[in-house]
């Protein structure tokens, strides 16, 4: 039976809570309501209100209490109703939680998860792709699955990880992608990319919902005889530098595609690594395709204009191929 990306998240939480009594979930409306997007549907019935905790609208309290519980040996999952709201708890997460092991030697293994990303007309406060604002704050791991398999496997890996993980789930994918998942327990290791499609003419390094933009672009390019490789990073921090460099060495041309705004985006870091470590393999400059440098607007024509799309990726590919 096919499992949606959203169901994969629910399954991962349920299976980890069943496997390990230290795992619990806290967040806004996660209990009786099952979460704003229903990612925790059925969990309170199965595990009770002691382990599926409805909180006040208090992101600092959610992340802070999760962190305090983690110091005590628990394995909390802290849900942000929208991942935009993690900015309210940014201080707690980056200053306290992320640094706890380094500063004082105390493990603080929490998972902060919630819906991110645009494409569903959520407007400026409900469309954030937050990875870059955490990339420069050592101590966190950051993952961003784009498939149901990775959504489940990475969430299980995040919950089992001994360090704090920011788990970025893409709300556009919740019910739009699905696949058959293995019946047995599995994890997707944090820090490992997946070469989604092999190619020889150029590489598209991407993650999250942009996988499907990359797919569309690669399909279109294939009709013109251009073979595009797609590398799904899956983990933003630590990121799979080896996979990036190997792909660049194979194709000699690279597009970094992400949904967050261009300037200061995670793509800038990957581009710099490629320039530092694979310069000799490049036949053209590193190209980035990302959202325009504005807050994500609400109205569909505006949002579509701002977001990356197939045609923008194809245009970038043409530019690289004709360089």
């Amino acid at each position, binding site marked *: 039976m096919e499992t949606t990306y959203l169901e994969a998240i629910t399954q991962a939480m349920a299976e980890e809570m069943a496997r390990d009594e230290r795992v*619990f979930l806290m967040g806004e409306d996660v209990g009786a309501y099952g979460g704003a997007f229903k990612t925790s549907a059925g969990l309170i019935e199965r595990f009770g209100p*002691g*382990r599926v*905790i409805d*909180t*006040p609208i*208090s*992101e*600092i*309290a*959610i*992340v*802070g*209490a*999760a*962190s*305090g*519980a*983690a*110091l*005590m*040996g*628990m394995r*909390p999952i802290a849900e942000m109703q929208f991942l935009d709201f993690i900015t309210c708890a940014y*201080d*707690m997460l980056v*200053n*306290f939680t992320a640094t706890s*092991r*380094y*500063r*004082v*030697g*105390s*493990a603080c293994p929490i998972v902060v998860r919630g819906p991110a990303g645009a494409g569903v007309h959520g407007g400026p406060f409900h469309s954030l792709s937050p990875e870059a604002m955490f990339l420069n704050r*050592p*101590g966190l*791991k950051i993952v961003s699955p784009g498939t149901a398999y990775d959504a489940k496997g990475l969430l299980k890996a995040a919950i089992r*990880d*001994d*360090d704090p993980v920011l788990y970025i789930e893409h709300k556009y994918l919740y019910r739009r992608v699905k696949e058959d998942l293995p019946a047995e327990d599995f994890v997707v290791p944090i820090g490992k990319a997946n070469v989604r499609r092999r190619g020889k003419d150029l590489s598209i390094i991407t993650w999250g919902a942009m996988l499907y933009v990359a797919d569309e672009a690669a399909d279109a390019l294939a009709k013109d005889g251009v073979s595009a490789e797609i590398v799904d990073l899956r983990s933003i921090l630590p990121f799979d530098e080896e996979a990036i460099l190997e792909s660049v060495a194979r194709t000699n041309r690279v597009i970094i595609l992400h949904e967050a705004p261009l300037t200061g985006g995670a793509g800038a870091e990957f581009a710099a690594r490629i320039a530092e470590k694979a310069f000799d393999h490049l036949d053209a400059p590193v190209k980035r395709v990302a959202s325009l440098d504005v807050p994500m607007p609400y109205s569909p024509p505006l949002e579509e204009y701002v977001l990356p799309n197939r045609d923008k990726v194809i245009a970038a590919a043409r530019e690289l191929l004709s360089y």
Partner: protein
Amino acid sequence: MTLTRDQLLEIDFYLRMTRTLEERLAALFRQAKVIGGLYRSLGQEGESVAAAYALDFKRGDVVGPLIRNLGAILVAGAKPVDIIRQYMAKGDSPTRGRELNIHFGHPVRDGFIGQISMLGDMIPVMAGIALAGRMQQKHLVALGFIGDGGSSTGAFYEGMNFASVQKLPMVVVIEDNSYAYSTPTEKQTAARTLADKSYAFGCRSETVDGNDVLAVYEAAKRAVDLARSGGGVTLLEVKTFRMKGHAEHDNQSYVPREVIDEWCGRDPIEVFEQRLIDDGTASAPDFEAIQQRVRREVDTATDEAERSPMPRPEDAVRGLFAGDGYWD
């Protein structure tokens, strides 16, 4: 809740240890052996020690101190040598030179956590410790400190509100020491008292003279007992005064002289000891013996800390994540 003579003298030991250790740190600071700032709790040792003394660390209770709660973590079991090593940024300090002063500790191993400089953040974290304790059926109490300044933060409100809704086994000692750095309490809040903030949370509150050691102990004990028995959160306001500047570099010029003079007559240690003398519990030689023991321990700790090595530079990149064995 009557304290035995031994317990009263033990409290006196912690009071004098706090003051003497800070005086030693001040001397080390003047010798440029303290690397960062030095934050004194002069005048506040009483409430800090007395509140923590109401806890039961054998049962897993946890203290969440602010910078002026050295006394509280000493009661929890922090070692003077570790405090001095922290201030001197030594490689064998509890944080191996990563963190300063009293920013160290683990709730399970040590019974206290390190201060978070974004002060309000302490309260949600302490709430999480109380929450986990309840989930783990440990019957522990989490006791956090906050001040007239720290209670202006959003994190304080979120943490208190969440803890109160959850009826967590938590006590928050809210210290009104009249100044947050140079800002007087009346510029922090229009609330009549800091205890009044409890109305927003629906939790219990109590206000007590922070320079009266026994009054603080008794109020804290009531709050701790209530929390342990499922009665929820208490916000315990202690009225005290910061007798030094924010840190050693701050000459406190913004505090009227007569205010300092007034509080000089209310020194918590002198008041406490005089009371024990007056009621015949102890005599001056008892305190002299305690002071000698304190001085010996501080001397030994200082010698040890001075001999400690500085950290190895290349260790700066280790121990960020699990798996490299650095903290094992």
